[in-house]
């Protein structure tokens, strides 16, 4: 296979991972902010709706998911520094030798 073939093969994988982590996580973060605003009510929303506890809880759950994603990223950086990588073969990320 030529260099162009390898590059395109790598590119679409990077694009897919990028969309899930690089666009998906910020989108979840945005939903989290929206939920917090819903929870806070009043000044936080253009509609000045009444505060709703459920929104606050949901917001923090969404933030927790985002933080897990970021931790995964940090683990990957640290692991690759030590010549390891993260495998998704068992669905749950596990640290394996490169």
């Amino acid at each position, binding site marked *: *296979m*030529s*260099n*162009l073939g*390898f*590059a*395109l093969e*790598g*590119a679409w*994988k*990077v*694009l897919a*991972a*990028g*969309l*899930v*982590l*690089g*666009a998906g*996580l*910020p*989108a979840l*973060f*945005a*939903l*989290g*902010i*929206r939920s*917090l*605003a819903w929870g*806070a009510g009043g*000044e*936080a*929303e*253009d*509609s000045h709706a009444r505060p709703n506890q459920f929104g606050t809880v949901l917001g923090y759950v969404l933030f927790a998911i*985002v933080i897990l994603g*970021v931790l995964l*990223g*940090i683990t*990957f*950086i*640290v692991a*690759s*520094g*030590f*010549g390891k*990588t*993260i495998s998704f073969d068992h669905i749950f990320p596990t640290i394996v030798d490169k």
Partner: protein
Amino acid sequence: MTESTVILVLVVVTALGFDFTNGFHDTANAMATSIATKALRPKVAVALSGILNLIGAFLSVEVALTVSNAVVKIQNSDGTPKESLTADGGEALLLIILAGLIGGIIWNLFTWLLGLPSSSSHALFGGLIGATIAGLGWAGVNWNGDGSKLDGVVGKVLLPAVLSPVIAGAVAAVGTWLIYKFTIGVAQRFTDNGFRWGQIGSASLVSLAHGTNDAQKTMGIITLALIAAGDWTDTKNIPFWVKASCALAIALGTYLGGWRIIRTLGKGLVEIAPPQGLAAESSSAAVILASSHLGFALSTTHVATGSILGSGVGKPGAQVRWRVAGRMVAAWMITLPSAAVVGALMWWVSDVIGGLTGAIVIFVLLLAAAGAMYLRSRQTPIDHNNVNDEWDASSAEDTREPAKTGV
């Protein structure tokens, strides 16, 4: 001290100098958006990025000794230098590395002077390619690899340079669009505060990844020089002082902050709001990490620029200054050949003069060029005080800059 020892010292000093320019050239990649949206005060942003680069550089335990193999044939596949180059205490190899590094530094400083975020990896590879062509001829360059994997100048440098900004831009555009879609109806003050935090987090991730990726290259080059000169033999490890000094050089460079480039990326391309900053930095972090996971080499600079552009495209009604983007793309295209020309010139100069004197002469040439560009930069200083000034107010002055001279 023998002649080759002195040249080795020059190589080490120049390599650390390159690492330093690599640091301040790339501060913008991580921190330009956080500075532009005032999520962080400028000085705090560069300090945070510097510290994370330092940590990142120390985390890179894996040896990047074969870094030059992607583009030039001066090493065997196990990382040892080619035997033909190590006669005479390795002087032949040391000169190629020295000339290549000087080519990289001079181009980095020149693009910094113009405020253009060009790729430091391209500058380094360009310098090495030029010096190798001068020293060993065209056959000394690994143009296309052997077809078994993504390799060579085309596979490791040119193709990723075309693809990565597009990928990063697409991801950031989708992210930005989703964020704005999801936060309709939320008061702007409320969202901006939240997104500033997200932005700081994602920018920190980019800084950390930068430290692990970029400091390694210089570590590999210095270790290669040490092996060539016979001062080190282990191809599986690098001396601790090399790691420590490279980590410090890139961190100090980052802390110094390439304010000119930060200004272009943060204010010049797009007027960035906190939600866009979050989308851009998240896209950069994800694309950089996913690429290194898949062994897909790319330039942090190209990714960061693509992401910021994408965040402008994805926000309904946002203004993107395509003229500034065009100038940047032009700079990207000429970075590799220009650094190569400087690298080749340096090699010829030192070869004509010969031996230690030749090496010292090109080192002095580097100092002179660096000093001249620094003095030129003082005429229109950009620092942490005016980095966030309105772009258009200064644009009249900006266009008077001779952007295309000296290329």
